[in-house]
Each structure stands twice: as structure tokens, then as C-alpha cells.
């Protein structure tokens, strides 16, 4: 009996001990640096950037967040920002640093030459006194055909350790980007042929005029801190001295990143003259499930969210508005478009493909009911697109696709013409897109009826995104396709979109996946030739008076030839507890919703 009693005791003790040991060993270690949990990170959406920098987009449903009756912005407090991804690194210049979420967090501690203003969606100077243009003399076209850009750095701009930000830092940033061992995008930077470094000035010369200068140096590195260290290993998990409103505090891997006030921040509130930022700290929390993000927001566990803009999500969030939530639903930079394959691969999908026939393409354009699509997929929150330039640079766009109204009768006339031109009795269309995107699946369902109405034999062949964006896109193996691009702001952004139709740039090295006018294209004509010219001219000028007419001409060619057919821009949404946090303004561009974190303040202190 005694032994039995003892043995049972020991058994339980052993169980407890085992659990305690495991709990002890599994617990977060005393020094948080040991915590190296990685959290999942959904890779950038397949509709990858046409140009990886930032974008401006028109605001469709604006909800003003800065209340007029301001009780006065007070210092202190913490704001929690939730996102479904975690940055793989905090260094934008190493692999993984191109992830969108890196810039969301990065807004707290990096500064660059310019940033996109969330209210105006225009570029504002940040570290420089004014953005260089041809007009203000900041950009000079040299006689030898090169172009020089001059930056004047603000006198007050300092790093968080007090060191002034100087031209050396820009030069250092350039040197890092051009490091051949770093697998990062070197576009535009690689065209810099000469630089000139001053204490508070920096100028560089590009081998040819290019509007892409607008967006480079959007974040810079502190030479004094990084020089002499191992850039790729030492600066991934900790921030360098901050040039932004906050400095790095903690990164609990898989959970959150916390940043605290930069006491040396150089910026002041233009209205009040107060030293920025107002908040003591900001926490970025990473919660993979949208459902959970919304529950956490409802429970006020997090203050700012930007969930994927599903209709249910928007409705769930709007239901919280009476309690003080502010929900912003905007039209974003991601634009969905229908397109035709002109390469030989189309025949593998549809041996009767009629893509080469312009009247067929025009018929398709009149077949599509964009209003119905927007109603069904976006709950009618925005207007459909009439041009691929609309979401990005509406001031340039002429809305060239407005000529194609939804009209089945017109469509049928075009189809009849196409039939007689092609000498066929029947038209066949095979539609391909990704099967794991609800909106696109719905789109394919809507198309079934639209094409039935105009008497085209229509078939859906949807594919997993991995297959579609892999083999199918690489080899042009589709007939009628649909996916999205991300637009970019300014002239540079608009110009980069023209690369997508460049007859001289087929994949894999170029971006003309449609193979419109490429060597193996079924359509090579005066239009493709002219477009190639326009594309080259666009990349040789920075003068708006030259650029705008060229862009509009190109847009008109693409619309008249129905190379693509823009459908709609995806929504972006953000929500904030407006009764607790002031100063928030969602920025639909890739600048992200944290673009003006320094202006955020708590109302409930």
C-alpha cells in the first residue's frame, strides 16, 4: 500500500515536473533576442506590381477622419495597428524587403526624399526642401543627353541619434542598392552615371532623361551607423537609427513589433508647431486571419486595421460606425482587366481562337456589362474603369474605353463581321483566370450569360493561381484572360504601365505577356509599331508637355485595338476607432495607411 501510494505520488510529480520543464523550456526566454519565431507571410499577391513603387488613386468614398472639433492633440498613448502579414525583415534592401508590409512598418522609422500624401495623393517632399522638377531647376537636361537631379536636404533633418542627415547618406544608400551581391531591384539607380555629394545636398546624373527619378530614394540608410557592419545580417531584425517619427523597441517574432517615440524627430506639426509625433508608441500586431482581425477590432484590442475589402467585411465594419468606428472604403491601385493572347499559345487553349480579328475583340468589348460586374462583385461601391490610367493617374487618362458601351446588339454586329472576315460559322471563346479568387470565379459565372446573349460559344477554363501565373502566363497559354496589375503614381508610374504592351519586350525579360506585336504575335501592324515608338519616347523625356500627349495617344491605340479591356479597380479599406484615435487618413497607394503616423494622436487620454 505504501509503495503504491508513493508510486502514484511520484507519477503525478513526474507528470507535473515534465510539464513544468517543458513550459520552462518553451517559454519566451529572458532576453527577447532569443525569440526567433517566424510568422507566415503571404507573398505579395500574384497581381504583382507593374512598377514596384508607390501609386496614387482617386478617392471614391472619402470619410474625413480629422474631425473639425479638435479637442487638442495631446501627447502620449499607444496605437495598435493590425495586419495579416508579418515583415520577414525590417530592411527593405534585402530579399523579402520588397514586401508591402515592410513599408507599412517602415513608415515609422524611415524617411526618404518624397512621400505620397494620403489626402491629395500627390508627392510631397519629405527630407528635401522641395521636389526637383524641370520648372524649379532641380532637374536639368544636359547637353550630352543626360539628366541631373539635385536634392537640397532640410537643415533640421537628423537621425534619431542626433546625427544630421547628409548627402553622404544618399550616396551610401545608392552604394548599397548597387551592391551586386544584393538581389534587389536596381532599376533607375543603375542608370546613375555620376553623383555629387555635399553636406546638405546630393545630385546625380542619369544616362538619359527619365521620369522614374520621381520615386527613387524613398528611403535612405544612415551611413554613420551601417558603414563597417554586415548590412545583410546585422540590419534585418533591428532598425537602423530612425529618420522617422518612431524608433524600434521590440520585435516579438510572430506577434508584434513595437516602436516608441523618436525624441529627436525633426518634424513639427505645421498647424500647431508641436514637436511630432504625438504618440508614445505604436504596436504592429500580426494576425493572419481576417476574421480574427475584425473580432480584435470589434473588441478594441486593435485600433487600426486594413482588412481585405470583401463585401461582408466592409458591412461588418460599417455596422460599428455608430459605436465610433470610421471605415474608409477607397478605390485602390489594383486594376482588373480582360485581355487577349496574341501569341501562338492561344491556339493550345482554343484552336478556334479569333483574337487576331479586331471586330471580334470589339464585339467582346460590347458584350461585357461592367456595371453589372461592379454591382455583383464590389456591391456597387465604385464606378467601373474606362481606362487603365484611371486608378493611377486619372488626370492623364482620356477614358479611351468609354467608346465600348454594353450593347449585345452592337456586339452581335461586330461578331457577324468577324465571322465573315474569318470565314467561320461560329465564334469560340475560352476564358481563363485563377480559380482561387472568389471575385474572379464570380466574374467567370457572369460571363457565361453575357456571352450566351451574343451567341458566342463560350467556355470557362479556370486554373489554380500557381498554374495560371506560372506556366500559363509564362507561355501565353490562354485565349481570353483576366488578372490585375498594380498601378503606380506620377508620370513614372504611368509610363511603366506602357512597358506591359511594348512589342519589343516579350517575356521572360519583358512584360508584354499579351504578345501584342511581339515577334511571334499574330498581330503586327502600324499600331504596334507606333506603340513601340511611343514607349521609347516616353522613356526619354521628363517634360509633361511631351509626355501627356504621348501617353494619351498610346492609351487611344490600346483602346481602339482592344488589346486589353479594363474592368474595375479593387477596393481598399481601412478602419479606425475614430473616438480613440485622431489624425488617421487611409492612403490607398502603396505608401500605406501608416504614411502619417506622426500625426496620429489619442483622443481618450
Amino acid at each position, binding site marked *: *500500500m*505504501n*509503495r*503504491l501510494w508513493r508510486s502514484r505520488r511520484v507519477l503525478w510529480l513526474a507528470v507535473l515536473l515534465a510539464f513544468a520543464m517543458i513550459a520552462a523550456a518553451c517559454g519566451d526566454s529572458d532576453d527577447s533576442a532569443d525569440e526567433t519565431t517566424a510568422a507566415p507571410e503571404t507573398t505579395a499577391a500574384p497581381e504583382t506590381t507593374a512598377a514596384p513603387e508607390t501609386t496614387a488613386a482617386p478617392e471614391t468614398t472619402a470619410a474625413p477622419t480629422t474631425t473639425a472639433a479638435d479637442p487638442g492633440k495631446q501627447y502620449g498613448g499607444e496605437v495598435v495597428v493590425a495586419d495579416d502579414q508579418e515583415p520577414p525583415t525590417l530592411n527593405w534592401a534585402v530579399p523579402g524587403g520588397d514586401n508591402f508590409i515592410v513599408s507599412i512598418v517602415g513608415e515609422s522609422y524611415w524617411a526618404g526624399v518624397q512621400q505620397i500624401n494620403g489626402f491629395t495623393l500627390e508627392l510631397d517632399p519629405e527630407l528635401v526642401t522641395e521636389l526637383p522638377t524641370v520648372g524649379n531647376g532641380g532637374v536639368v537636361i544636359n547637353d550630352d543627353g543626360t539628366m541631373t537631379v539635385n536634392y537640397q536636404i532640410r537643415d533640421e533633418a537628423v537621425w534619431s541619434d542626433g546625427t544630421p542627415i547628409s548627402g553622404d547618406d544618399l550616396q551610401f544608400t545608392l552604394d548599397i542598392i548597387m551592391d551586386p551581391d544584393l538581389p534587389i531591384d536596381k532599376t533607375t539607380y543603375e542608370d546613375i552615371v555620376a553623383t555629387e555629394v555635399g553636406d546638405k545636398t546630393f545630385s546625380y546624373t542619369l544616362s538619359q532623361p527619365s521620369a522614374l527619378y520621381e520615386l527613387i530614394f524613398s528611403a535612405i540608410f544612415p551611413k554613420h551607423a551601417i558603414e563597417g557592419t554586415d548590412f545583410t545580417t546585422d540590419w534585418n531584425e533591428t532598425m537602423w537609427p530612425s529618420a522617422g517619427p518612431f524608433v524600434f523597441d521590440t520585435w516579438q517574432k510572430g506577434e508584434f513589433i513595437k516602436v516608441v517615440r523618436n525624441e529627436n524627430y525633426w518634424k513639427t506639426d505645421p498647424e500647431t508647431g508641436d514637436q511630432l509625433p504625438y504618440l508614445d508608441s505604436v504596436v504592429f500586431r500580426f494576425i493572419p486571419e481576417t476574421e480574427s482581425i475584425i473580432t480584435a477590432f470589434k473588441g478594441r484590442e486593435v485600433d487600426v486595421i486594413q482588412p481585405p475589402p470583401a463585401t461582408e467585411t466592409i458591412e461588418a465594419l460599417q455596422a460599428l460606425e455608430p459605436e465610433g468606428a470610421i471605415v474608409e472604403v477607397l478605390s485602390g491601385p489594383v486594376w482588373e482587366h480582360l485581355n487577349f493572347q496574341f501569341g501562338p499559345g492561344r491556339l493550345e487553349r482554343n484552336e478556334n481562337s479569333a483574337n487576331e480579328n479586331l471586330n471580334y475583340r470589339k464585339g467582346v468589348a460590347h458584350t461585357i456589362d461592367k456595371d453589372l460586374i461592379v454591382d455583383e462583385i464590389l456591391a456597387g461601391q465604385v464606378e467601373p474603369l474606362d481606362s487603365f490610367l484611371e486608378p493611377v493617374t486619372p488626370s492623364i487618362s482620356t477614358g479611351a474605353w468609354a467608346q465600348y458601351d454594353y450593347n449585345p446588339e452592337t456586339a452581335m454586329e461586330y461578331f457577324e463581321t468577324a465571322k465573315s472576315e474569318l470565314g467561320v460559322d461560329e465564334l469560340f471563346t475560352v476564358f481563363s483566370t485563377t480559380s482561387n479568387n472568389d471575385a474572379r470565379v464570380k466574374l467567370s459565372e457572369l460571363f457565361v450569360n453575357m456571352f450566351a446573349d451574343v451567341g458566342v460559344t463560350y467556355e470557362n477554363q479556370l486554373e489554380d493561381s500557381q498554374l495560371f501565373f506560372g506556366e500559363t502566363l509564362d507561355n501565353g497559354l490562354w485565349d481570353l484572360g483576366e488578372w490585375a496589375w498594380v498601378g503606380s503614381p506620377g508620370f513614372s508610374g504611368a509610363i511603366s504601365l506602357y512597358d506591359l504592351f511594348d512589342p519589343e519586350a516579350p517575356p521572360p525579360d519583358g512584360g508584354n505577356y499579351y504578345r501584342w506585336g511581339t515577334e511571334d504575335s499574330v498581330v503586327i501592324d502600324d499600331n504596334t509599331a507606333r506603340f513601340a515608338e511611343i514607349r521609347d519616347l516616353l522613356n526619354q523625356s521628363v517634360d509633361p508637355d511631351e509626355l501627356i500627349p504621348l501617353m494619351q495617344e498610346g492609351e487611344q491605340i490600346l483602346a481602339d485595338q482592344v488589346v486589353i479591356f479594363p474592368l474595375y479597380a479593387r477596393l481598399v479599406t481601412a478602419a479606425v476607432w475614430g473616438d480613440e484615435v485622431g489624425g488617421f487618413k487611409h492612403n490607398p497607394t502603396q505608401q500605406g495607411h501608416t504614411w502619417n503616423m506622426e500625426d496620429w494622436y489619442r483622443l481618450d487620454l
Partner: protein
Amino acid sequence: MAEPLLNVEDLRTYFSTEEGVVKAVDGVSFKVNAGERRGVVGESGCGKSVTAMSIMRLIEPPAGEIVTGKIEFDGRDLLQLPEAEMQEVRGGEIAMIFQDPMTALNPVYTIGDQLIETILLHQDVSKSEARQIAIGTLADVQIPNAAARMEDYPHQFSGGMRQRVMIAMGLSCDPKLLIADEPTTALDVTTQAQIMTLMLELAEQRNTAVLLITHDLGVVAGFCDTIQVMYAGAIVERGTGDEIFHNPQHPYTWGLLGSMTRLDETQQERLHSVRGAPPSLINPPKGCRFGPRCDFATDICREALPILHQSQEGQRVACHRADELDLKALAIGAAS
């Protein structure tokens, strides 16, 4: 005559099943005196084990229930005892040994643990004393190297050895009554005799009464003072060993004797046996329950239930025709 050790009166134990109420024990009365060896014989399902379980009050409601009856043990009615006092009786005053020694011991404790547990429960001794008692009892049941084997688990013993352990466990607290329910059935024939001899010797040394339950008349032959034969939930005949074996009064007893396996049997030919199968205990046949299987049944046997009464020969028997039939002659004829 002194007060009997055990006095069972009109015990009725019924089980509820989906088909109906099974009257497993239906009006059983008997007495066992101190130190007596009593054999209870009958086919499987005749109620002999249920009788034993009822005495131990191991019938678990709601499935089974003792509906009426009185079980007087050592001057107390066991059916009226509170559970706590009944626990004192179980294992302490009445011990029980079960049929299958392979499964009757808990496989996860050493036999030492299981013995000591019983001793500590019923005797006011220290743990080390209990251990000594346990070793002593194991030695009594002739387990070699008893002290070392205390640490062994049941699976390390053979069937016969395990039954010795069971006997040791039963007798370790010097009970007044030992109920042995088919103690040797699962054992091979040579072991059977050893175990029986050992058990009865030890019981005699301790002056423990034994209620030996078996389906095999051969086992009780020569061991028991009194034998009672059960059939379909009731006692049909009771008498001394001599009476039962040499002068059976009930045709069922006679049938059992005929089918008995005897180690000294020379006769190859079976002259008689009990035909048919035992009756349903849910709807027993009208009249004598043995009637449908009885070679000698008459009209009265089909009409009226015979009660246990003193026969002319001296033993008690429940048969309408007990006095008419000369089963003895038939039995002797069969045997010779």
C-alpha cells in the same frame, strides 16, 4: 442445534433485461453451519453463482436486484447492513474465490500489493506486519520463495499458482465463510485436485466454512459434507454426499450423476444423461421446471410446482414422484 453461520431464506434475485425479468434465483433457502463444507451443484445458469453473489451483495442495481429474502450471517441480516459494514463483511468475514484466476487478479499491481491491500483493509496491523502475514499466507498455499514472489505481477504466475494466490487472498483474513465459485474449472485436471485439497485443508485449519459452487459433481465428491443441487433458480435436492451420490431422489440429480466424469470410471458406456436444455428463466414452464426434460414426468408434474420437502430417504427433494421412483437402483445399476 447451534445457530447456523449462514441462513438464507427465500432468496429471490431477478435481473431486468430487454426481453423481460430473468428470475435467476427464485426462492432459495438453506443454512450453512460453521466449519461446514457445502457443495452447490448445477448446470450453467442454474443460479448458483447468483446465489453466491447475492450473499456477497455484489448484485449491481439497476440490472440485477435482490427482490425478497433474508440472508442471515453470524446473527446479522446482510441485506439490511449499511454499505460500510457490508464492506467489512466482504473479504473479512466472507471471502470469495472466482472461477477464472487468469482474469480475477488486477494485472497492473503486484500480487504482494493486492494481498497486503486486503489485509490492511480488514486487520488492524501495520504495513510491515501485513507484509509478513501476506508472505505467510503465500507460503501456506505452497508458493515457493513466497517473499520474493510478492513483487511479481499476476502475469508472471501460472493459472494454478494464481488460484493459489486467490486462495491466499481469500484466507488471509481468516474469514468465517469461504465462497469458492468454480475455483478449479479453468485449471487442468491434475491441478484441480491439488487446489481442492489445499483449499479444503487450509479451510479446515482455520475452521472456515466453505460454500463450494461447481457444475461438476466429481469435484464435490468426497470433499463436501452437504451437497445441494440447483436447477433453474431453485434447489431441487439437498443431502449428504452419501445420500446424493448413492441415493439420488430427484431425476435431475440422477441425470447429473449419470453424466458425471469420474477419475475412477471404468464403464465406457453412458447409460443415461439429461436430455434437452435448461428452461428459460423469463417464462419458466408451468409445473415442475425440470418437467420438460424429465423421463418420469406425469400430469401432476406439468401442473404443480413441487416444493422442497423431506423425502422418505431422509434428504430434502423437490419432486412430486420422489417417493415412487427408485432411482437408486437405476443409479447403482448404472454404476456397476
